[in-house]
């Protein structure tokens, strides 16, 4: 496999992404009157971004974090609180949500740099666990989290003179289509950039990565930041779409559902998280009438999928040995080294 193989792979990933988005863009033509279906599609796009950025850090970078929903909540709350406090447009609120969550991500990432797998999982999960009592506490109330009740009114999203509303899902759908596409494009760019190769190198062998000069600390912090920022940004969008925000989304069911999206789509397989999100949401919705059993089935599904289908749906469509990834990575670094050597001589 030479450089051509590399390029092929990159084009294929982008092609799949574009094809999926092209198909999605057509859906409202047929279903714009079906409110509940449109709602599922919109929510799927939101969770897809969360799952995708979780996949970026866990699937690609191999860093075991359980703080993704915490970053979603941090982004959501800070976005809404800033909008209310300063009267800024929710569009800026989304950015602020991303920035605050990204900052929080780097902050959480710092103590994790020196820690090993299960410890990183614990520290990040601790953030998740502490967030709820914090948001409900007096300090939380003082900054405007609304305590146990949560935030019940969210400033509406406008574009020109048009005000987004729950009765018209189509504008919401296309807005989310664009926002989530941007998010996935960023993830795609990161995965196929120098950074991305460094992540993969770090995941597969820290020793190897260091031997070719990858700075583990720097890249780990960057991936913490990007993954949290994308999630925080979509947190703001989520709050705006749902129209309220409370600590209920910190419940374990969302955590599990996101995990189903990841393993169903294929961990570390771009854009598996996107496909996983849609399929999972549709399974979830079709099980709506068996609510008590829904999470039992999901629990079973996670077990079966992890054991029987380690590369998820994407793995079924485009099977790829792990060796392929390593080879690609090694190749990439060899090329880089060769280029460096050329420049010196």
């Amino acid at each position, binding site marked *: 496999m030479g450089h051509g193989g590399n390029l092929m792979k990159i084009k294929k990933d982008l092609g799949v992404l574009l094809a999926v988005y092209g198909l999605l863009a057509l859906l409202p033509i047929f279903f714009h009157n079906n409110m509940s279906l449109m709602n599922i599609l919109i929510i799927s796009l939101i969770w897809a971004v969360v799952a995708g950025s979780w996949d970026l850090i*866990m699937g690609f970078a*191999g860093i*075991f974090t359980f703080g993704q929903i915490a970053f979603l909540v941090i982004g959501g709350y800070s976005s809404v609180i800033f909008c209310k406090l300063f009267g800024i447009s929710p569009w800026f609120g989304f950015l602020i949500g991303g920035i605050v969550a990204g900052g929080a991500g780097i902050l959480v990432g710092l*103590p994790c740099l*020196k*820690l*090993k*797998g*299960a*410890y990183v*999982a*614990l*520290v990040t*999960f*601790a953030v998740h*666990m*502490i967030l709820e*009592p914090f948001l409900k*506490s007096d300090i939380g109330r003082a900054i405007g989290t609304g305590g146990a009740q949560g935030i019940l009114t969210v400033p509406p999203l406008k574009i020109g003179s048009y005000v987004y509303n729950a009765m018209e899902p189509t504008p919401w759908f296309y807005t989310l289509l664009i926002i989530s596409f941007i998010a996935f494009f960023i993830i795609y760019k990161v995965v196929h950039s120098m950074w991305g190769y460094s992540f993969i190198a770090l995941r*597969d062998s820290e020793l190897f990565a260091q031997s070719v000069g990858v700075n583990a600390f720097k890249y780990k912090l960057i991936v913490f930041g990007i993954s949290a920022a994308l999630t925080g940004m979509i947190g703001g969008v989520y709050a705006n779409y749902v129209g309220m925000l409370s600590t209920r989304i910190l419940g*374990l069911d969302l955590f*599990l559902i996101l*995990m189903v999206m990841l*393993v169903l789509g294929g*961990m570390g397989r771009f854009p598996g998280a996107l496909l996983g999100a849609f399929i999972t949401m549709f399974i979830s919705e079709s099980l709506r009438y068996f609510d*008590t*059993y829904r*999470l*039992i089935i*999901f*629990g*079973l*599904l*996670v*077990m079966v999928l*992890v*054991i029987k289908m*380690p590369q998820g749906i994407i793995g079924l469509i485009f099977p790829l040995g*792990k060796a392929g990834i390593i080879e690609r990575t090694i190749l990439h670094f060899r090329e880089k080294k060769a280029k460096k050597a050329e420049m010196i001589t």
Partner: protein
Amino acid sequence: MLIELIDVLISGITNGSVYALMAIGMALVYGVTKVFNFAYGSFYSMGGYLAFTVFGLKFGYFPVLIIAVPLLFLAGFATEVILIKPLRHRADWEMAAVMVTLGLAMFLDNTFQAIYGPFTKSLPALFTGGMELGPIWIGNQNMAMFVISIVVLTSFMLFLSKTRLGMAVEAVAQDMDGAQIVGIPINVVFGVTFAVSALLAGLGGILLAPKYFVSPFGGWDILVKAWVITALGGMGSIRGSLYAAFILGIIEAMVGYWIGFTWILFAWFAVLLTTLIIRPQGLFGTWG
């Protein structure tokens, strides 16, 4: 003031003894199999519900143990054989194992909820009354929990150091390749480790059921606490977990008494984070 302090310390040590029981099961599994078992808390709940079910049949506490011990042991063994073993040859098996056990936790917890409903179940106390030592009062229930925990802990330590199988378990924890080379059946050891760990968690659930009630998701609190304890002690270090359990038990009693119960988990995480910044491998942990 002195009496207050003694009271708090007694309560801290009682907490610590039960936490030690809960945490070594987790430390054992991590130390031996390198699996972080997310379903650990669900085995705790399973113990509680088993106790509730058997107790509901009006047989008293003794039959609870006779029925629960083999069932918990089996559940743990089956978990390893069915869920973990098929993953072991994979490069990303550690992460896969976490996800599988997370799936199992969700499956078990929601099954409990489907069977027993979302509300907490209560069990009568094992012992009532208490004794007075001058101005200090010690409840019999707490005393019994302390004694039972210490007995279980001691027998567990004896199992590890004196029996051939126990030594094999420790050998696998210290050096998996070394254990294979000398002909230790590591698959059996892995299974037994999971079984013993589920048993310890479940016994904890039975012991604590009268005090904290039984609920479908009650295990998560235990999972997080056991996790913090083992992390503080050094993941996989049983000795470290024992110390950490008592340290955190006493901190819990102090924070609960003087500052407020809501701050207990904050205090735990603060202690953990400070320790990890200074010693990333925990108090007694080793890298590798």
